[in-house]
């Protein structure tokens, strides 16, 4: 069967089971948009290519399936660089198709030419510049294979326009060998010696902590984690990337560790004699000052990516495996620590003394952002998916939203990409249309990618957006207040400019505003009744509110600052 390269590309995506592409056409990718008309694949026409990338990420995080984005060459490609970098930092499986100028024009500074494989070399798991139409199926199949196996990540396929227009004899790879990846070996056999050593390490511990990272979600190991935690009775901390991997309502869950983690989670790690890292990478936002991090702890490091071992902290035992396989092995070996009665007594005291708190709600026309999150959560159906941008609102959402299920928290962890919230919520809603999707956003973040609400309205994707509008770049405001002697530099945004209600309405969404507690509950009630169009609520929140607890950047986790309400007078 003879196909054009463009037809082969679309057919290859169909072969991979793709149900939706997020994209925006342009010159170099135009040939591919023609056969798309005849395909069963849904296309979401975004308003900016960054939106396409973040939507694909939200889709991938919510479903576990790879997200697919397609854009044109040059600026189309550079506009999607941020989502690619974001997906790389958070190990999100993504396949990005970029159009490229015709093969013969590459290297001539042709119109809308850019070296996107060069640009994304350091922020993709791998990328391909396709060299012949015959190779299109191989490149697509390899991209999906690479994106979804081993440690997942973004893969880019750059397709010159002339190849999309030329003819090829259709074929599709059916074996891994045909993908021609001699240097890629994602399959690992579980190292029994390492597992035995892990069991021994656990047996020697009396103050263990299960340090649960995003890899636990990537390997769909929540059920295994629950079984292991239930049997052993060990305390669990869930990193920002792992919120939802273990139920917050579970009595062994101490919450999030790190810079804005709970006192109990941070301190339990500091005092632990064993950290069992499950798909976590000892990020600086978790460890604080590395030499002072968990000084008495041995490290049992489980990861599919062996480059993570000994990168930041030397592992006493390293087990290269999926988190699911490793937990199953530890479970069948009945790995168990010593008696933890004294350990739990200390942890319970930390929990009782320093729970997450915030100032009493006021009714002076400004809301407490934490109260808004709690009110939305209380009115939300079980299984509601929450996305966020990056900053104070993200930390509060992670702290105060009760996560019970995996893949209900969509956020930008490693890269810290402002503007991630709205488009990723749209992608999540497309992947799981039966779930309610709330985006907890900040006013700064919302302004970066809000135009995708036009996409959401046009495509019939009814997400709900809660803007915690404190009129500031809130986290920068917090740092300037606390660490720059309250010198406020380029951080004020205004609560009224833009008018978020009018803006939402202009984009075809319902726009609501809430200043008082009563208005807050009423707006949430109204939003929950609307299921056909997107809703945006402008919650006016207190500007001076700070995220606590906090470990200052570069400080030891022992120097955690608790909420002022919890400080001794």
């Amino acid at each position, binding site marked *: 069967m003879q196909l054009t390269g463009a037809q082969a590309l679309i057919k290859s995506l169909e072969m991979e089971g793709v149900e939706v592409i997020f994209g925006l056409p342009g010159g170099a990718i135009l040939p591919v948009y023609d056969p798309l008309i005849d395909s069963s694949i849904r296309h979401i026409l975004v308003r900016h290519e960054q939106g396409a990338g973040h939507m694909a990420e939200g889709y991938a995080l919510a479903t576990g399936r790879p997200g697919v984005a397609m854009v044109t060459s040059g600026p189309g490609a550079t506009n999607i660089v941020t989502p690619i970098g974001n997906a790389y930092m958070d190990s999100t499986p993504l396949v990005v198709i970029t159009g490229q100028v015709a093969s013969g024009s590459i290297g001539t500074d042709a119109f809308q030419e850019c070296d996107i*494989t*060069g640009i994304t*070399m*350091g922020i993709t*798991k*791998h990328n391909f*510049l396709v060299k012949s139409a015959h190779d299109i199926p191989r490149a697509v199949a390899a991209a999906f294979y*690479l994106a979804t196996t081993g440690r997942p990540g973004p893969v880019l396929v750059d397709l010159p326009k002339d190849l999309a227009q030329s003819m090829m004899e259709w074929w599709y790879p059916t074996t891994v060998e045909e993908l021609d*990846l*001699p*240097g*890629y070996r994602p399959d690992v056999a579980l190292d029994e010696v390492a597992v035995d050593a892990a069991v021994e390490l656990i047996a020697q511990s009396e103050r263990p902590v299960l340090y649960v990272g995003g890899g636990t979600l990537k390997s769909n190991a929540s059920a295994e984690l629950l079984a292991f935690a239930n049997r052993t009775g060990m305390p669990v901390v869930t990193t920002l990337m792992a919120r939802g991997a273990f139920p917050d309502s579970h009595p062994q869950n101490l919450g999030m560790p790190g810079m804005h983690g709970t006192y109990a989670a941070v301190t339990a790690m500091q005092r632990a004699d064993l950290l069992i890292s499950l798909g976590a990478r000892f990020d600086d936002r978790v460890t604080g000052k590395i030499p002072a991090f968990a000084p008495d702890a041995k490290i049992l490091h489980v990861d599919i*990516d*062996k*480059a993570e*071992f*000994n*990168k930041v902290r030397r592992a006493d035992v390293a087990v290269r495996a999926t988190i699911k396989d490793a937990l199953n092995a530890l479970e069948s070996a009945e790995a168990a620590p010593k008696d933890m009665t004294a350990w739990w007594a200390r942890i319970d005291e930390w929990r009782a003394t320093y729970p997450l708190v915030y100032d009493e709600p006021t009714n002076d026309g400004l809301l407490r952002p934490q109260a808004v999150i709690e009110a939305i959560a209380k009115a939300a159906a079980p299984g509601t998916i929450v996305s966020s941008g990056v900053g104070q609102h993200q930390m509060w959402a992670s702290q105060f939203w009760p996560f019970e299920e995996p893949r209900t928290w969509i956020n930008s962890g490693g890269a810290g990409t402002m503007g991630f919230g709205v488009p990723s919520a749209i992608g999540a809603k497309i992947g799981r249309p039966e779930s309610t999707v709330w985006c907890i956003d900040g006013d700064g973040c919302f302004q970066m990618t809000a135009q995708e609400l036009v996409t959401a309205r046009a495509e019939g994707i009814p997400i709900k957006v809660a803007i915690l509008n404190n009129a500031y770049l809130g986290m920068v405001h917090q740092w300037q207040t606390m660490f720059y002697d309250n010198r406020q530099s380029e951080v004020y945004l205004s609560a009224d400019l833009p008018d978020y209600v009018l803006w939402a309405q202009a984009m075809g969404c319902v726009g609501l505003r809430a200043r008082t507690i009563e208005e807050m509950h009423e707006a949430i009630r109204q939003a929950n009744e609307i299921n056909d169009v997107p809703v945006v609520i402008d919650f006016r929140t207190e500007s001076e509110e700070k995220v606590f607890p906090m470990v200052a950047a570069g400080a030891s986790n022992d120097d955690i600052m608790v909420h002022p309400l919890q400080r001794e007078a």
Partner: protein
Amino acid sequence: MNAPEPFLGDVVHTPVRHHILSVLVENKAGVLARVAGLFARRGFNIYSLAVAPAETKARFSRITIVVDAESAPLEQIVEQLDKLVNVVAISDLSPKDALERELLLATIRTDVNSRTPLSDVVANSGAAIVDVDAHSITLMLAGTPGACDALERQLEDFNTVELHRTGRVALPRLGMTASS
């Protein structure tokens, strides 16, 4: 004139904590950029680098990289390299287990007074004269990096027009195996 360095001399100019990575890669466009880019963005230092098609014909190339194991733990360098999809195999040679060789080519301007001492240097160092005209000679040395270093120092007394070194290649000494 100093006595010439023995042909199997130790490494002189490079620090002791260097390691030689022999990296088998797919022979595809951009692979060298991927390897070099990885070193750059992770802050690993390269002392020397040599690339050529490997023994298995056109499909693979071998990159011999001398890395500074002070700039990052060798384990991290190897593991990050191994994650590059185009990297097929890596063997790590410690200097004491390796036979390292490098090629030096130098063109020296000569006159009546310098020809004889230069001939002595060439003879004593094991170098060979590969080109001559009325005013210059070009010499070549294939030897250990230490021998090349020594020759380079001796040539400081002469009028060197150009001097090129290839960067080293290496194989395990017989009876030694590289770790991979």
